């Protein structure tokens, strides 16, 4: 377990909600921000704010150094070969849409296949649905095992020589499942397809090595890993990005503009049209420093341990069902559940009245809800600042909810 001292870095945690100390268990939706990140953003606006890549003046240089320095931090964080492969974007959704609209439009034709799975988040479903409709391509789903994991046999059955894109989440935001991305990438490559990874739930929690995974694209968001909202990253292999067209045109991304023809900047800037998300990137850089100081391996271990403890404690409650793999080693730090027939909204409201924040709903994964045969679920998700005491509070809250609705449901 990580030291509870980490909590001191998060000013938001030091408050009462509805008369109880806050227990924040919704980090899979968005994480809280440490003071270091808040200050990095505040210092940027307070001391260095200027546009990047154009100022001859000192502030312009500082802003550019901060922005490009953050890119190097991201490169190192995911072990990319070069900063040319690191493109700043609004978040995972924009990154996946960019791959679909740029790489996808150029490389997917009629009758070609795009392969995803039943556990995907809407942002890794709809860009491919739209692309498949536009191109007359076929969108194929890999079915899940009973415990909510993926089997490589099923992946092999679905991917064929007509498959051009395989796009799969690294860690499920509902089941907590950690998928064998490296092995799936090998299968995809053997059929000449590219491997796209939705890393939104992975980057905050485990060491990412895009070279080891050998994925072609990797997308993630800053706000789930202690960074601000509005910043995310698209990693792509240089040889692929080089041949891809931008999907946004305008300032910042151009080299030469004529009346009827223009040319683009080098990588990565050709994909960063408009004034970039400077403060966001600097905040993300500070978040990376913060996480690396704790150590990604320590973070991963902390979450496994918390998930294990939570699953043990929650199993004590009669009528509580947990979704996803029951082996805590196979899952990241979140537990999705339902309490008897009590609707998850009602559960979440009772917990909120006791200061405990959980998510209730379909978690942007309607096809997965259908697969689970539920209309919605509740989810408790953990991060570095959560403790066993938080899990105990959750369990107490769930018992109260169960009793409160005992004669209703």
């Amino acid at each position, binding site marked *: 377990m990580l030291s509870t001292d980490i909590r001191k870095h998060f000013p938001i945690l030091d408050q009462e909600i509805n*008369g*109880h100390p806050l227990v924040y268990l919704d980090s899979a939706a968005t994480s809280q921000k440490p003071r270091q990140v808040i200050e990095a953003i505040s210092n940027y606006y307070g001391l260095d704010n200027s546009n990047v890549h154009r100022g001859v003046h000192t502030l312009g240089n500082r802003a550019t150094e901060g922005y490009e320095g953050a890119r190097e931090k991201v490169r190192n964080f995911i072990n990319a070969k070069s900063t040319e492969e690191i493109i700043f974007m609004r978040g995972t959704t924009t990154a996946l849409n960019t791959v679909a609209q740029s790489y996808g439009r150029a490389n997917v034709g009629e009758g070609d296949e795009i392969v995803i799975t039943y556990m995907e988040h809407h942002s890794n479903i709809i860009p491919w649905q739209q692309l498949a409709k536009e191109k007359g391509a076929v969108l194929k789903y890999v079915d899940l095992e009973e415990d909510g994991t993926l089997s490589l046999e099923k992946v092999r059955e679905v991917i064929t020589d007509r498959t051009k894109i395989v796009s799969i989440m690294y860690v499920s935001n509902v089941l907590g499942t950690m998928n064998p991305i490296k092995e799936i990438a090998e299968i995809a490559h053997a059929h000449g397809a590219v491997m796209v990874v939705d890393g939104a739930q992975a980057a905050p929690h485990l060491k990412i090595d895009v070279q080891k995974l050998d994925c072609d694209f990797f997308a993630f968001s800053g706000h789930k890993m202690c960074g601000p909202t509005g910043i995310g990253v698209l990693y792509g292999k240089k040889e692929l990005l080089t041949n891809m067209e931008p999907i946004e045109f305008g300032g910042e991304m151009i080299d030469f503009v004529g009346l009827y023809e223009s040319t683009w900047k080098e990588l990565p800037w050709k994909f960063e049209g408009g004034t970039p998300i400077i403060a966001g990137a600097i905040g993300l850089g500070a978040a990376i420093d913060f996480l690396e100081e704790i150590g990604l391996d320590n973070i991963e271990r902390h979450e496994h341990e918390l998930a294990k403890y939570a699953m043990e404690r929650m199993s004590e409650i009669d009528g509580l069902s947990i979704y996803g793999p029951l082996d805590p080693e196979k899952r990241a730090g979140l537990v999705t559940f339902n309490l008897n027939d009590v609707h998850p909204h009602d559960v979440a409201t009772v917990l*909120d009245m006791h200061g405990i924040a959980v998510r209730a*709903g379909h978690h942007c994964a309607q096809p997965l809800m259908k697969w689970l045969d539920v*209309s919605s679920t509740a989810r408790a998700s953990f991060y570095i600042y959560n403790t066993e005491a938080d899990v105990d509070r959750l369990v107490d809250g769930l018992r109260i909810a169960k009793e409160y609705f005992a004669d209703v449901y």
Partner: protein
Amino acid sequence: MSTNKLDQLYRSVIMDHYKNPRNKGVIEESSITIDMNNPTCGDVIHLTLQIDDGIVQNAKFEGDGCSISMASASMMTQIVKGKKVDEALKAASVFSDMMLGKGVDDSIDLGDIEALAGVSKFPARIKCATLAWKAMEKGVGNDSEQ
């Protein structure tokens, strides 16, 4: 303290409507069918209305959702049945005011829906309560355009 606030939301009359929903089902020969869902949480309602001579003769619903959304649907069908279309729409507007925490026009008999007034203090749950009413407004509105 927390439980008191919870009791303002989960009044016993709401729980009664949830457990024993009124007008549950489908009108086979309905003049109007509306399906509506709440995209952020997955609540769904299938509402059928029988409107003749400008009067809501019958209203039934089926759905899947939390106690607040299903109880509100039950109360809504109860209150609009037998009402003129414009009265049903008026009730919807009174209900909407109630959800916004505004003072309520007491010239209309609100019946059980008064129990839902506490929902206005739970902003995240207002959309649960309004789903069925929005479905009704849409259905009645479509009918009056015909």
